[in-house]
């Protein structure tokens, strides 16, 4: 993301994320098996396919509009906990980006902060509760602190890994208590994929 994120760049990002979700759908669902209900990969896959179709149909003009459209599509196609949460993240981030034709990493970080806050307001999870917030928050903080998208992706990955040793306090996994220790949170893992997809586009610009 040396060249700032344009509408096309935002679509490429989501396209790469969708590809990653397709590739890892079984893994994400498997993460959801021991501590949840074995559907996280299926849920996101259904959602991201709908997102790509919706973006093709609507062809939004700005990165903000791309994320807004993607977010509302997730809300109306995913269901479960992850639909409203991922959907709200992208919708609110998109709204916060406003009409800008393109945004740099710092601006994206400020937008994502709005999205993150909406996610914590909606779901009530804090860092350490073993949810997607554990991957999302450090990534957003890294961007806010001037980090690159690659650094943000690394922070998200570390955050996702940190859930391995945590007792979940939100979502389905929380019902397992101590039995959940030793398992990675599926939503944190998919959030890490979202930021990895962002970093993968770095330097590729709008290509």
């Amino acid at each position, binding site marked *: 993301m040396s060249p700032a994120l344009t509408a096309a760049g935002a679509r490429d990002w989501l396209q790469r994320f969708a590809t990653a979700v397709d590739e890892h759908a079984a893994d994400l669902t498997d993460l959801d098996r021991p501590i949840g209900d074995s559907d996280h990969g*299926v849920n996101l896959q*259904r959602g991201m396919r709908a997102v790509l179709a919706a973006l093709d149909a609507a062809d939004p003009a700005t990165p903000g509009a791309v994320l807004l459209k993607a977010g509302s599509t997730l*809300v109306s196609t995913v*269901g479960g906990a992850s639909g409203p949460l991922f959907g709200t993240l992208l919708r609110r981030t998109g709204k916060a980006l406003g009409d800008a034709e393109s945004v740099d990493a710092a601006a994206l970080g400020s937008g994502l902060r709005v999205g993150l806050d909406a996610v914590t307001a*909606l779901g009530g999870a804090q860092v350490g509760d073993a949810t997607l917030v554990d991957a999302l928050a450090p990534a957003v903080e890294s961007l806010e602190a001037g980090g690159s998208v690659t650094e943000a992706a690394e922070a998200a990955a570390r955050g996702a890994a940190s859930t391995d040793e945590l007792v979940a306090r*939100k979502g389905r996994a929380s019902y397992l208590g101590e039995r959940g220790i030793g398992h990675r949170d599926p939503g944190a893992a998919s959030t890490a994929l979202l930021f990895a997809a962002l970093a993968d586009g770095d330097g590729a610009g709008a290509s």
Partner: protein
Amino acid sequence: MHVPTKLLDDPADAVTDALRGLAAVHPELTVDLEHHVVSRNHDHFGDHRPGKVGLVSGGGSGHEPLHAGFVGLGMLDAAACGAVFTSPVPDQVLAATTAASSGGGVVHVVKNYTGDVLNFQMAAELADDEDIAVETVLVDDDVAVTDSLYTAGRRGTGGTLFVEKVLGAAAEQGMALAEVAALGRDVVARSRSFGVALSPCTTPGSDRPGFDLEPGEMELGIGIHGEPGRRRVPVPATGVAREVARTSVAAIADDMPLDGEELLLLVNGMGGTPLLELQVLAGDVVAELTARGARIARALVGNHVTSLEMAGSMVSVCRATPQLLQLWDAPVRTPALRWGA
């Protein structure tokens, strides 16, 4: 671990196909195959009632007959059916809410799972935009979750049936929105459940069950989404049903005193346990409850709130009042619960 052969056509279409089947045999229901919403066919029932409070529930599929099987006279006005074990999206809940709305407002009966809570909440906001007043009754009757502070809170399970039956009757009798909602919260406060799995279940299209259970093990404190429970214990050599009854009733009684209470009782099968076994369990559960000084006022035994083909049981009770009994006994005509009509 063995994955059972499923009587489906395409696992991806399981919910659509099941709703098409429901429509084929229940002309008294209207099935919206786009939104996966089941509602009353008012022409069939002849129950056009402007101002009646609408009663809506919904959630992931895989719990049949809950919720679509409880749509009809004296119970739900509409149900939104999500993918298997996945809460419906706000658009679906909104479609159900619109179908159920007759101007008197709509009550959402929501089982306490993060996904259900969030999607119904968003739907309620959308309904508000359309000037439909929505009240939400959150069902969290599952006593297996004891540490609500450190979890997403107790889950909504078998007690949902009590809430839907009682509120359905109340709405039918003309009770107003705020009162129906308050009554619903009271029913929730009076209801408790505890579930046990003797086998896991497999989501359609998946190549593996939700958990592995060795022969001779059972999961205590399960929810209704094929997920593992709170604790795994060995199956006793004899007296399995007695042990399940004892554990279930003890967990409930530790949380809500039962002595001197009149109870609505649901001895619920999780989907794959035959009625012969549920009847044995029912006998043991009644013995346990009676020994604790409770009296069984009304009882249901069967598969009402299920987890696909999971073997196991859920014991649910509701401390009754004369009003609740009157509402329980009121006529109901739905695919899965029917009397007096």
